[in-house]
């Protein structure tokens, strides 16, 4: 069974701090996607990482895919209150259609 474990589960920080959240698995994924979800809304796709060792930047967000394609990280620089939300990683299952989601990291940034 493919599983994605995310850590930490909750993170509460002050505006301006840096943070990293992690997404780990014992399985290899062909790609991993990061989503952000607001309460009562659907997940919004942030980025897809596809190559082992790949680094993608989206403004203050930096996404990295592990060399073995089993893990990924999301680093936020100088967090702002607008970054508050649930961050989810998801990978394609072996059958190739379903996305398997992690439980997510709930980030709270206070000013």
């Amino acid at each position, binding site marked *: 069974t493919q599983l994605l474990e995310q850590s930490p589960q909750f993170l509460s920080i002050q505006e301006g701090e840096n943070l990293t959240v992690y997404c780990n698995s014992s399985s290899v994924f062909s790609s991993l996607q990061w989503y952000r979800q607001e309460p009562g809304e*659907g997940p919004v796709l942030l980025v897809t990482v596809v190559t082992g060792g790949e680094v993608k930047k989206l403004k203050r967000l930096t996404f990295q895919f592990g060399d073995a394609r089993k893990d990924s990280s999301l680093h936020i620089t100088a967090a702002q209150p607008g970054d508050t939300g649930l961050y989810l990683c998801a990978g394609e299952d072996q059958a190739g*259609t379903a996305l398997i989601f992690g439980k997510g990291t709930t980030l709270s940034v206070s000013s």
Partner: protein
Amino acid sequence: EPEVTQTPSHQVTQMGQEVILRCVPISNHLYFYWYRQILGQKVEFLVSFYNNEISEKSEIFDDQFSVERPDGSNFTLKIRSTKLEDSAMYFCASSGESRYNEQFFGPGTRLTVL
């Protein structure tokens, strides 16, 4: 920017009743999906649909569930006889020709079964 839409946003029903949740995927997408998220839990895959047939389904998607693409735009999820444990947010998603199965999600329908 094109987006996935879902109706209704909230649905309250009595246990044992049938419900139909509706989705309009992004217009040039070919793959359609339903996921659910029970309050406080992770997003779970239900079913994927391509070329007018189910391509993959999870253990959750039992005989009480069915999907249909009745016309060129709508994609529906029917639950025949709802149970209390069907209460959840239901998300529709669609994806196009991307090699990496990038799925775009709708805002969800909150289903409450009483």
